[in-house]
């Protein structure tokens, strides 16, 4: 019994003592390949929260420039880009950053625009203080593109 309990504890530590911690998965992340003279670069991804605690993305960091979080909102046929302070991913929920919706926007570029096929390292920063490093590929049309199997 003691042995069992001890193994559980070890396993628990191995898993990062993760019972009440957040478990966030970043999937299908992509950056749209943009013309070399662009001043803005969009970032998209799917955030899936497997954990018991909500996650709140407060920033994305990139060596390329400043990243802002935005939401594309439609009102009477006109599209607006609204700055967003943070993106909450509730426990058990999935939030998509996708074209015509939530997205990250890299501006004030101080490095050359990445090319098709490049991998761009980004850091996702959360309200909890957690940071996640992701490598995002520059592609022509996203993984999340709905036209995939037309």
């Amino acid at each position, binding site marked *: 019994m003691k042995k069992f309990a001890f193994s559980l504890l070890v396993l628990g530590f191995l898993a990062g003592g993760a019972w009440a911690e957040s478990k966030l998965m970043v999937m299908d992340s992509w950056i*749209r390949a943009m013309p070399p*003279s662009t001043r803005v670069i969009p970032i998209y991804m799917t955030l899936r929260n497997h954990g018991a605690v909500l996650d709140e993305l407060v920033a994305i960091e990139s060596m390329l420039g400043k990243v802002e979080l935005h939401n594309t909102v439609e009102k009477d*046929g*006109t599209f607006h880009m609204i700055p967003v302070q943070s993106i909450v991913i509730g426990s058990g929920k999935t939030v998509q950053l996708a*074209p*015509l919706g939530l997205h990250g926007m890299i501006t004030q570029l101080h490095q050359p625009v990445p090319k098709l096929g490049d991998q761009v390292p980004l850091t996702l920063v959360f309200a909890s203080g957690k940071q996640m490093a992701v490598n995002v590929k520059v592609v022509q049309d996203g993984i999340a593109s709905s036209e995939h199997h037309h």
Partner: protein
Amino acid sequence: MLTKKLVTALVLWFVSSMVWAQLPVLRGIGGDFTLTSSRGDSVSLSDFSGKVVLIFFGYTNCADICPTTMAHVSRFMKRLPEDKREQVQVLFISFDTDFDTPEHMNNYLSFFDPSFIGLTGQPEAVAHVVEQYGAEFTKLAEEKVTTRYKKLSVEDTQIERPGYLYSHTAKIYVIDPRGRTRGYFYNGTPLEQMKADVLSLL
């Protein structure tokens, strides 16, 4: 004999009117205009008489809507057989007259599809076309989207022009070979429907 001809004529008229009914001529929206093209010359909508024209209003500092639309339209173009593709012209009209010079637009558009033509002009000229087409655009917060990286292109070296963000109409206007507005496509319009609609106009 006459009855057969009459019946055939009636059937043909009925079928063709069904096709026309899908994309009715929209009165009061659209019309001819002249602006400056990304290739440096003066361009009018009537220059493309005989072709289907797809018009989109946007600006190059747009991160989400405009590139997504350009990608969608580019994918649609690739679906058309080559001989039909040559009969379709995409026009991207920029209302960001502060920032989008013809040269800059040419660099931008050629990345998405070399056949796309960018148009811009004096603010009043562009505003007039926007109004003709029942579209709109609004300059948003005074945000800078410029880069400090100097090597990009000849025109960018010295002056750091502020790039503003805009909200705007994102419809793709469908113009028939006679210059009349027939309908709209959107980012969500399925490619097959776009293809069927455009082919029906050619």
